[in-house]
Structure formats: C-alpha cells, structure tokens
C-alpha cells in the first residue's frame, strides 16, 4: 500500500496503517530527536510522544510532505521536553554530565557499516564530540542546525517546523555554526584530517 493510502486509512482510525507509517519514519524522526535532546531516553520519549500526537491529529494533516509534518510534531515534542527540563534542571544536568563524563554510556547504537573496530571507535568518538558541541548550543540554535544540516531541510521547512520567521532561521543557523566552529576548534586533535577546519592552525 502506498503512503497516501496508508495516511487515508490512518485518518479513518486504522492503527495498523498508521503503524506502517511509523515503521517507515521512526528512524529519521528518532534521529532528529536524538540530535536535539542529546541522549537516548529523552529522544525515545519525545519520539513516542510525537507519534502518539501524530496519530491523534492525523485528521488535521492536509497533504504535503508527510515527513515534514512529522518533523514539525517531533520538533514540538522536543521543545516541550526541553521546557520540562528547564523546569526540572537536575535531571537534565545529570544526563548531560553522564554524557560528558562517559561518552560511551549514551550508547547511541550507531548503525554498523562493516568497518574495523578502530575505525568504528574513531567514528563514535567523532560523533560524540560533535554531539557534545551540539549539546552546548542554545536550544533554539541546536534545533535549527539539526534540522538544517542533519536532516537537510530547507529554510522554509525549518521556518514552518519551528514556527519562526525565515530571517530568524537564517540568524539561528549562522550563530549555531559560529559556536560549533569555536567548539570544534578545541577538539581538532580528535577530528580526522579531512574534517579539520581550514582556518585553524
């Protein structure tokens, strides 16, 4: 069954059809949540909330990119979770501390591509450094840069997903890149040669 048919069935309350859509999109949706939240438990919670919310509101889906619609929902779910974190800062600090002290503890379960153990370890280190730099960004900027560079959404889609003006999206992405540039420069020794910033010694 193709996607529009599945969506139509889901709109009539068919949970099986909706679950087939979940199977199709859960990986990219979870990845966005993981990059925004910075750790697995919160990302899983946000993803689950997003799919529940999507099912409840699927009658309001009016065409267009279904993936983009789901991205908006997961973005909102992450926003809600980040707001809850701000109200209860102890838990988020614990999570961040765990992540920084023991990068492997987050166990991002990276998909294997039949690489050597050394290459795999190096790739996890690199990913963890990047994730740590992402975690240091303000929430709004992290959200914008994840949608732009990790999910490769265009500015218009990001503007709709974040419900902000196009100019705000441009500004947040630029500021996020400036901060990432600064953060990466402190970890240059962990980066492979082809990724080293050209402007740094």
């Amino acid at each position, binding site marked *: 069954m193709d996607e529009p048919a599945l969506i139509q069935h889901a709109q009539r309350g068919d949970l099986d059809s909706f679950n087939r859509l979940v199977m199709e999109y859960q990986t990219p949706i979870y990845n966005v949540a993981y990059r925004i939240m910075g750790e697995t438990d919160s990302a899983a919670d946000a993803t689950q909330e997003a799919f529940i919310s999507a099912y409840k509101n699927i009658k309001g889906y009016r065409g267009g990119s279904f993936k983009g619609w789901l991205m908006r929902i997961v973005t909102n779910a992450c926003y809600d979770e980040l707001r809850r974190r701000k109200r209860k800062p102890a838990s988020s600090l614990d999570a961040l501390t765990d992540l920084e002290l023991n990068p492997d503890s987050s166990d991002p379960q990276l*998909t294997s591509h039949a690489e050597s153990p050394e290459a795999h370890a190096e790739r996890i280190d690199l990913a963890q450094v990047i994730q740590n730099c992402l975690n240091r960004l303000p929430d709004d900027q992290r959200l914008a840069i994840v949608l732009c560079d990790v999910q490769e959404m265009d500015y218009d889609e990001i503007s709709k997903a974040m419900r902000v003006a196009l100019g705000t999206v*441009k500004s947040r992405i630029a500021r996020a890149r400036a901060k990432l540039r600064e953060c990466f420069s402190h970890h240059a020794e962990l980066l492979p040669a082809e990724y080293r*910033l050209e*402007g740094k010694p």
Partner: protein
Amino acid sequence: MTDLELLSAYLDDQLAPKDRAQIESRLKADSKLQRTLADLRAIQNQLRALPTVKPPRSFTLKPETIRSRSTFNWIPILNWSTAVAAILFAAVISVDLFRAPLSARVEFSAPMQAPAPEAAMKAADQQTLITLTPTRTPAAISAVATSTVLAAPAVGAAGAAELPKAATPAAQALAPAVRSSQPADQIATPSPTPTISPPTHTATAAVIATPISAAAQESAASPLRVPQIILGSILFILIALSLIARAWK
C-alpha cells in the same frame, strides 16, 4: 546581515541573486572570508556525516497506549471559562459605573438654593477636594461638608433647604462646596452682600460636585457589589488555574 550570516546563507543557497553575486565577488578578493566559508562548509559536512542512530525500540502504537494517553485536556475549557468570566465581570463593572451617575443625576435634579457669599472664596479649596470624589448622594453632601467646613446644622439633608440670610460664615462657606461646578471666575466675583441665590445648579454640576459618602449609602448605590466580588474571585481563580495548567503541560 553580518558576514557570517551572509556566508551561512550562501552555503545553504538561501541568498537572493544580488546578495549572492556580491558575496561571490568579495570571496574572490578576501582570503579571510574564504577561510570562514571553508570552516562553515567543514562543519556542515561533519554534521551531515553523522552516523544514523538506530532507534532503541519500535515506536509503533498499541491500542492500549492510545487509550491510556487519552487524558482529558482541560486547557481549552479553562481558557473559554476565563474569557466568559472576564466578559461578565467587565459587564457588571460597566453597568455599575453607568448606573451610579444616573441615579445621582436623578436625585440631584431638585432645585438647590445657595448664596454666592464672599466666604465662597475661602471655601474654594474645600470645594476642589470634594469635587474630586466619586458619585455620592445629597445626604452624603451634608454629612461630609458638615464635617469638613464645620457648617451649622441647618444644612438640609435633602440638599434643597435654603440657607438663611443670616447664616454663619461657616454655613455660607458650605454652599459653594455643594455647587462645585461653578467656574472659578464666578466664585471669585461674589456679590457685595450675602444673598440667597436662586436655584441655578444643573444636574451635571450636581453630579460632578459629589463628595465622600458613608459606607452604607455607597453599598446602596452599588447593589451589584456582591456579583462583582463573586465574579472577580471566580476570574482570579480561573486565571490562576489556567496558568498552572499551562505550566504543568
């Protein structure tokens, strides 16, 4: 836009053709700008090269998950209730505000005689104070004016009693306090001898010239006070509940 914003938007192909041509021309001549662009491109490549993370579990929904999450959403109901309570509260306040001056106008429509004595000038300050107070009944005028100007007890409670020609200066001073809306220049040009003036006060003047009243009269003039308090309390509680519900969500 700063150079960084320009370069970032250029990297994402989000610049207008004019801006794009401008930054490309600057890039050709500026090596620092070239390095910054290369850094931004490297960051973008790094983020795009991040490995896909495998979800820790399946997120497919079960019927019981949907049912257990179908908690009732109180926020829209609270919002509507708050709006209705606010409108009712505003309506009751408005009715009370418009109603009080009307009753005062009716009560003050009876003619009032007062002299235009020289002592009026001395009482101008008292009059000014009284003029600034809200709507009151004629009885209240005598009550407050008596206590303020130490007038003789001959002042009528209904506000229509004539002041005797030989009234004490204090009692004469009371009259201008009652006819408050009379312009200052009229007050400043009193008659050579104290005489009893014909009834000249308009209803509007009487309304403006209302002094402080007793609490009992005030409640009588505002029979809507109880609904105001009840509605105000309900409104306050609803606003508090709405804020709590939003924060909780």
